């Protein structure tokens, strides 16, 4: 399965468009990480626990998108976009979407 955020896959021709596929996940941090982040906030800087959490979420959202793409018989996803939104206090939704295609 190939994923790009271009219109196409360089060197390959798209033979069929199978429509939009998407995957998303909503996650919140656990309490321990939260307390640590609160302390970290006094001195600022990178919040590694959150970076990791959002990376895991993005991997999962991408995996769900790919599962959808496989289900419709695609072998590539093009024009992929990511979006993160803060939906409730302490919880974030990470979403990935793109166009499922068949390439040769």
């Amino acid at each position, binding site marked *: 399965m190939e994923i790009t955020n271009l*219109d196409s896959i360089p060197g390959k021709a798209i033979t069929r468009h199978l429509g939009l596929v998407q995957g998303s996940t909503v996650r919140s941090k656990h309490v321990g990480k939260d307390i640590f982040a609160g302390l970290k906030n*006094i*001195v*600022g800087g*990178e919040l590694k626990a959150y*970076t990791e959490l959002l990376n895991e979420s*993005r991997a999962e959202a991408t995996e769900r998108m790919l599962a959808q793409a496989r289900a419709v018989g695609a072998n590539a996803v093009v024009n992929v*976009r990511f*979006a993160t939104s803060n939906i409730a206090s302490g919880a*974030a939704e990470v979403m990935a979407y793109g166009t499922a295609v068949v390439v040769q």
Partner: protein
Amino acid sequence: MELIIQFGVIAFLLLLGLVFGRAAEQRHFRELKQKELILREVLVFSEKHPPADQEFRSANLVVGSVVIAEDYFKRIAASLKSLVGGRLTAYESLMDRGRREAIIRMKQAAREAGASMIFNVRIETARLSESDSNRQALFAAEFIAYGTALVPATRP
């Protein structure tokens, strides 16, 4: 008496933020400069169409992300500054750090894949807030940089 203790705590937090926050920021900027120099050979474009005359072995999505939070000093400095408005330099440097770090991480991912260039790079910022009823909102932002890493067919 209570008032004095309260002021003492705030002053202490401010000092912590000022000393450690500033030291961390300067260290981060030094690291950014170094890493950017090392990763110079990975070319980054926001252009959507890769050159048609060049052949590529593979294309895959690469992502770099980072979550960065303000320090206590920046928070107070920014809230005082917003009384009169204008540039909030405390936040400007924070945004700069986050974005550059995200781009560096994306470039690192591309280099691990053996790519020489990244096309259609998109940069996004998402605010992550932490509003508890009894605590002031934490300002943290996530920076994501992503694009398509292209591995050239012929290695130079």
